[in-house]
């Protein structure tokens, strides 16, 4: 027999994807993963492999540099490229534009092909990495000079530091956006990149190739970061077959014990899941959910943040996908995050919860059983505005999809007072959702024959006067929603 559990919209329609409005007025988020990175320190690699650097450094003028780079003297070429690289590695305000204006990028790209001169190759790769780390225009200058194919070839360079530098450069190019990301994928960047870290080649083997073990970790970090950039961005999403190739490696990387590697792998999962349901399914099918949920409990912000994001994205999917996350224990991990001192985490956790609350009543029951209502009410009462907004969504979804008993439990947990207090917020959409929620509560009360008691409660908690105030709200839809409730439940005793 037909059931009518999910009234109105089904859960898919109630789940809210990460981006409702692609337009942003805010500053870019501070907790995002870095898109592009510049290599600024004189790392060990540099010191150990370029003994010449230790000599007194003779700085060439810009004219001399251009001349040297375009000339045929290998010594001078190397020195010029080194000078450029040093300029670009300055801590502050690297002169990327100036270097581009010198018109020497095609030449630097050409040097990447000098397999006979690894020093020059390395210096050129480094310089180009730092140019590509700039704005989109800067990256374009590198790509349009034809740097992609030689960099991909250099992934397989016998010299580990050159291979690593190329990974870095390619990461910067991939981080620019979907166009260059796909350009790299079309140039077959993935097989040689993954070969560097293939699970059949344990990390130890990689390390053996190098004298220093810290280099190994650094290299693996770079690879992970570049892979994550290849998973990143939408419109379009990265090609499916590429994703399928990268997934096993990411699974493997997620088991590493270096926190940067775990963090970047988690970011990669968060990108892959910020997507359509069939793509979420591919990730869920790998069986990674328990690990991601475990990492949501990590004390490291850099790991917990992207793990939470990834899981949050997964529960925007189908009921089954959400169930998989519940089975992996997400509900046990959320209370702590809802109470996290960082507001951004509270907000993200509440968003995640709102999508679980959008599910069928069995999932709502699990949410209640796992004790999510008390932290939800706390957040609604005391959270920062962004988190409160998400918490309102949780409540709205619970009252839409929950059974009457579940709605009763919600009210008994004290949700009404903070919810009604929020009728003062300066955000029309949130007001409307609260009013919808109040309507849902009244529907449930009607079924139980306790409309009067709810009326009383709403008025006691100051909800009535706040709704009265909304009758002068400028937004017509908000005004009407308030009016309907007032007329229906409060007009006459």
């Amino acid at each position, binding site marked *: 027999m037909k059931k*009518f559990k999910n009234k109105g919209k089904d859960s898919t329609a109630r789940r809210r994807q990460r981006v409702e409005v692609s337009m942003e*007025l*805010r500053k870019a988020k501070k907790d995002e993963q870095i898109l592009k990175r510049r290599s600024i320190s004189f790392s060990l690699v540099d010191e150990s492999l370029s003994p010449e650097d230790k000599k007194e450094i003779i700085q060439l003028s810009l004219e001399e540099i251009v001349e040297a780079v375009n000339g045929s003297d290998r010594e001078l070429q190397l020195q010029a490229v080194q000078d450029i690289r040093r300029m670009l590695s300055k801590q502050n305000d690297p002169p990327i534009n100036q270097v581009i204006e010198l018109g020497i990028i095609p030449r630097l790209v050409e040097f990447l092909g000098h397999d006979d001169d690894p020093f020059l190759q390395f210096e050129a790769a480094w310089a180009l990495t730092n140019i590509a780390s700039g704005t989109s225009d800067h990256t374009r200058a590198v790509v349009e000079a034809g740097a992609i194919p030689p960099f991909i070839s250099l992934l397989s360079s016998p010299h580990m530091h050159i291979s690593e530098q190329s990974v870095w450069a390619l990461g910067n190019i991939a981080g620019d956006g979907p166009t260059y990301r796909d350009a790299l994928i079309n140039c077959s960047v993935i097989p040689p990149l993954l070969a560097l870290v293939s699970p059949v080649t344990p990390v130890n083997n990689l390390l053996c190739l190098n004298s220093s073990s810290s280099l190994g970790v650094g290299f693996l970090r770079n690879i992970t970061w570049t892979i994550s950039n290849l998973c990143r961005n939408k419109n379009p999403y990265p090609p499916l077959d590429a994703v399928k190739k990268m997934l096993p490696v990411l699974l493997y990387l997620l088991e590493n014990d270096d926190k940067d590697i775990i963090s970047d792998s988690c970011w990669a999962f968060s990108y892959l899941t910020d997507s359509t349901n069939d793509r979420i399914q591919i990730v869920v099918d790998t069986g990674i959910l328990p690990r991601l949920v475990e990492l949501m409990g990590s004390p490291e912000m850099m790991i917990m943040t992207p793990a939470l994001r990834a899981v949050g994205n997964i529960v925007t999917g189908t009921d089954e996908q959400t169930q998989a996350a519940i089975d992996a224990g997400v509900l046990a991990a959320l209370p702590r995050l809802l109470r996290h001192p960082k507001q951004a985490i509270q907000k993200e956790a509440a968003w995640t919860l709102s999508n679980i609350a959008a599910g069928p009543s069995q999932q709502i029951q699990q949410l209640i059983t796992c004790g999510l209502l008390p932290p939800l009410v706390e957040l609604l009462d*005391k959270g920062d*505005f962004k988190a409160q907004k998400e918490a309102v969504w949780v409540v709205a979804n619970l009252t839409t999809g929950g059974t009457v008993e579940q709605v009763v439990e919600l009210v008994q947990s004290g949700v009404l007072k903070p919810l009604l207090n929020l009728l003062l917020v*300066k955000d029309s959409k949130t007001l409307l959702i609260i009013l919808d929620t109040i309507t849902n509560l009244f529907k449930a009360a009607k079924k139980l024959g306790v409309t009067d008691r709810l009326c009383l409660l709403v008025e*006691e908690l100051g909800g009535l006067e706040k709704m009265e105030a909304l009758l002068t709200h400028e937004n017509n839809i908000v005004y009407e929603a308030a009016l309907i409730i007032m007329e*229906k439940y409060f007009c*006459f005793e």
Partner: protein
Amino acid sequence: MELSDANLQTLTEYLKKTLDPDPAIRRPAEKFLESVEGSQNYPLLLLTLLEKSQENVIKVCASVTFKNYIKRNWRIVGILVEDEPNKICESDRVAIKANIVPLMLSSPEQIQKQLSDAISIIGREDFPQKWPDLLTEMVNRFRSGDFHVINGVLRTAHSLFKRYRHEFKSNELWSEIKLVLDAFALPLTNLFKATIELCSTHANDASALKVLFSSLILIAKLFYSLNFQDLPEFFEDNMETWMTNFHSLLTLDNKLLQTDDEEEAGLLELLKSQICDNAALYAQKYDEEFQPYLPRFVTAIWNLLVTTGQEVKYDLLVSNAIQFLASVCERPHYKHLFEDQNTLTSICEKVIVPNMEFRAADEEAFEDNSEEYIRRDLEGSDIDTRRRAACDLVRGLCKFFEGPVTGIFSGYVNSMLQEYAKNPSVNWKHKDAAIYLVTSLASKAQTQKHGITQANELVNLTEFFVNHIQPDLKSASVNEFPVLKADGIKYIMIFRNQVPKEQLLVSIPLLINHLQAESIVVHTYAAHALERLFTMKGTNNTTLITAAEIAPFVEVLLTNLFKALTLPGSSENEYIMKAIMRSFSLLQESIIPYIPSVITQLTQKLLAVSKNPSKPHFNHYMFESICLSIRITCKANPDAVGSFEEALFMVFTEILQNDVQEFIPYVFQVMSLLLEMHKNEIPSSYMALFPHLLQPVLWERTGNIPPLVRLLQAYLERGANTIASAAADKIPGLLGVFQKLIASKANDHQGFYLLNSIIEHMPPGSVDQYRKQIFILLFQRLQNSKTTKFIKSFLVFINLYCIKYGALALQEIFDSIQPKMFGMVLEKIIIPEIQKVSGQVEKKICAVGITKILTECPPMMDTEYTKLWTPLLQALIGLFELPEDDTIPDEEHFIDIEDTPGYQTAFSQLAFAGKKEHDPVGQMVNNPRIHLAQSLHKLSTACPGRVPSMLSTSLNAEALQYLQGYLQAASVTLL
């Protein structure tokens, strides 16, 4: 129209005429202007006039006319609306947009405001896509240095951007805001800084300062609009500039800007008030980013409060400032800013107590504007008052500091009461403040209906009541210290749930006595308090105060209530009328001895107010009181209905004849009530009115529809036979009403109520000839606009029809419209939609009707309809067992706002005119599940073997299980 001098002259003359007080001159001129609105160049002629006319009055008139013209015509309604063509031609649009900004900026202020409004109307439609230059044009003017021009730009920008404060987030909106921010944010910031600098260079120039402060107010408003949706990157980066300057403006004072006016807020107050709003916005929405600035603002705003005077002009500023503190102090991470005992004491002493004082302005309102005073004091429409804000701050502080705050205030209350005791006639205001403080401190939750429902346990309310409230009310003179009397009565009202019942009973005669007070506030409060006390619930859903307990006071109560209506200023006092209604309702038969006098007074009142109905609530309660008089009396003595008709019909006739629109719906309801009281055939006096009720003009007004339908239902219930025999020619008119109602999405359920009454009560022969037509009408509506509400009503109707006329008749009438129609209705409507039917009676009707179709309709057993038999049975079992399907298709979301109407006319605006729920199948079927089992049993006896085989082939297992349960309960088996 050409842009010629002749046309300008003509237009000038007509504009002049539109200002003429004589409608005979004014109206034709307005008509003429409307008739030329669609002509090309008309708006440009107006613009020319408002710029160049010699007469100022024509300039202003032209600007107003222009604004209204833009308001009516600029928006191009969707292409679909053919009767609203685009009245403004494209070239005029372009010309207007090209000229209006400079014109606005060069105009004097009066005209500037009109043009600024016009720009924002145009902007709402055209900005930004179709008016790309607007922003640059405006921003360029910032550099003019002419603050008359700059203020014009700012004002226009404010009217363009203020919608960002309330619109929903959307891609479109945000891209517009982004565009505005890119072009506007930096110049605005620079202008802000420059203006502030100019303020200090012109610190001694009053007229320059006024202009500059007007700019600052507008800039602060723009800041609010631009920052409302989200914190823009630009403003986050420039928070230091904005907040530092806002902060210093809050602390700024300049003698030159102080105004002498006590009422009207000056520029300084308006600016600071807006800054409080801006800070509150940031504190609420962008807490993380604003945190570093917040403590400074708390201190500044608090100092502002301590130094601001009691004058009315500061009210908005003070209440905004207090509200800011109230919202901040209850956030956990700012708790520390208030925690210190000295801070708390200082807030209580210097911010809260002074703002709770009864001011001269309050005293004035109490005496001269009591209606407004009552509204603010009693109904909580005091959102912007200082007292209210102070109360909110008390409640906010109590969230974390209830103990200390109560402690501080207890001391205050005691000292104020002591002051009062020393010399009551001089110091009565101290007691007022003390009572107010106790009230705000003690009340944690409050409702109109129940008063305070949760009180702070630290205040002993009964003690205070006995020691300080009752003595005032017991004093010999009801007119002494009216404010304290009102305070005392209000105290009873709001703490009625906390004060023990015996104390309330002691208070009742005191309250009745105060109905005689001269002060409007005092006798109104007394009436209101009595009404509230009479509404209190005791155990077992009875009233707390019983009729027996009031018995000794009935006479004096009724006398004083009606006498209070004769006191000056209270002739239409809704509180008194409501108290009358409530007293009737409580006292029931003990009022019968007084009814003759009461009904005379009520009809006189009715006659008087019907000349000019102005107090809707008063009128409503008056009609409720009339209904109660009728009910209570006729319950004891049904024959008394005649005397009511005698007393009321004359006034009713006058109301109907004079078409007193406000009262007509009430009259119909009272008439319904009276008619339903009759036990025998309908009296001829009602039948004489019947044809008038069918007049289309009555049905034009939506407010008439529910009570009229109700009244016609009463006619059908009592007089169906009389109508069939004596007024058969009116049946088409009756059906005409049905047809009109059914065509409307809003009123179709009313049409069904009427139709159902016709089917239920009219002798079948009298409607035979119309039946097919009725079904055809319903099908047309189904085809044209099918809504969930319509389907639900339709289902109830066809099942009622089936019950009344038989299942076979139902099948035949469908199939007579179109062959196989019955099957289609079953398959497409009944089976899939039956789960949506709501309401006990409605569900029962459907259950019985469907049972009949299943068991008493031969074609269901032996034609192609047979395949629908099992699905129909399954649907019926679903109706019994599954939760109601209250889903509504998305596109209907906004239509169905009036909820699911009941089978009965849900319109019960007069609560005491309502009738009992009517169940047309009540006697016939008691338990529809058992009825189904029995009917199936009967059917299976008639054709053994068929029913079990149909069940076993396709009935869902779960449904079968339920069915077996019904059969068991009915103790029958299927053969």
